[in-house]
């Protein structure tokens, strides 16, 4: 069947089977390989994208179920001029990534948190990111990056 949706502001459409997951529609169909697949039990969160403004695990949504939706992926998070957005920049500034594999999902989940809760506490950040597994950073710098992106003094909070 043909599935159409808006991805990062652009109308797109592509062929999908009933079983085609949104993650593979994005990766294989649209070539948007920034969305990663790190597990098959809906737990690691590397595949998180926004569907109609809400963070979802794209490996646990069928492409057909997202037909007509407005989808944002990591490729749609930079500023219009291509420079890093505030949250992305905070991840770089605070060394919130190492191998980069979990990073797209981490950024998308964190962006959803800040949209909902612009000044989260460190504990709120940690709790919100429980569905995003990172094996490299030990989370310390990820939490700092999210706090910094929210305009808080991340160094001070981390040292408390």
């Amino acid at each position, binding site marked *: 069947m043909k599935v159409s949706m808006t991805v990062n502001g652009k109308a797109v459409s592509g062929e999908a089977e009933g079983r085609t997951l949104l993650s593979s529609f994005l990766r294989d169909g649209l070539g948007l390989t920034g969305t990663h697949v790190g597990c*098959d039990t809906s737990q690691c*969160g590397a595949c998180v994208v926004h569907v109609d403004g809400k963070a979802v695990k794209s490996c*646990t*949504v*069928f492409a057909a*179920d997202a037909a007509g939706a407005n989808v944002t992926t990591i490729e749609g998070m930079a500023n219009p001029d291509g420079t890093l957005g505030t949250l992305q920049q905070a991840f770089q500034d605070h060394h919130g990534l190492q191998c980069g594999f979990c990073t797209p999902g981490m950024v998308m989940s964190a962006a959803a948190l800040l949209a909902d809760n612009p000044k989260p506490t460190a504990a709120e950040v940690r709790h919100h990111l429980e569905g995003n597994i990172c094996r490299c950073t030990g989370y310390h710098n990820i939490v700092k990056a999210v706090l910094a992106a929210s305009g808080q003094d991340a160094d001070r909070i981390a040292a408390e």
Partner: protein
Amino acid sequence: MYNFDFVKPTSLADAVKAMAQEDAQALGGGQTLIPTLKQRLASPAVLVSLSGIAEMKGVCVGDDGALCIGGATPHATVAKEAAAKFPALAALAAGIGDPAVRNRGTIGGSLANNDPSACYPSAVLATGATIVTNTRKIAADDFFEGLFTTALEPGEIITEVRFPVPERGAYAKFQQPASRFALTGAFVAKYGSGVRVAITGASENGVFRWTEAEKALSANFSAGALDGLTVPSDGLIGDLHGTPAYRANLVKVMTKRAVASA
């Protein structure tokens, strides 16, 4: 996964029709079903997504004061919209899975699946909620029939769940460290007529009512009222994450904590 036809009706009537096809399977949020399909442990011919049916979504208060939640309402919506009327239920919903799972997973999907470690069944059973389907109303006490088994007939769709809001209520969950499902969770609900306690995560038969605790708490709604009770470990789950004896301990500890925070 095996392939299937995917349909996404926009009305309950169309969904019921679609479910009448051979080997049709309802898809709520899919947060359990899709991983199951990936493992090729299910092979529906038609998958009927319920996520496009507006009439099955939302939280409202019924004429009798019950909190009514549409069967296709995601956990995140319950966490927000039930917070004022039934904070214990909202808190439970806010603790299921993770934020992305809560944006997709639905109450109807969770109840229809009846995972022995899921959170919602404890709230439904402890409040004596009513499960409304496209064909009938089912009392909570009649709904849960053991591990992954419910009173639902093939093709039957949960359209709404009606929760009588307790005077006091709380859910206390002890997380399984890996899945973060309930290793054991206790929901206590105090009504004028008495107290109900439902335990999830602990029993090999799924969610159950802890009647001894209900009796003790109906007489004296305090954590201390449970001190003298013991929970037999027969029939409780033993796995990597805890022995039956450990779960028996958690049943009591979590129930006390729920009472203390109610």
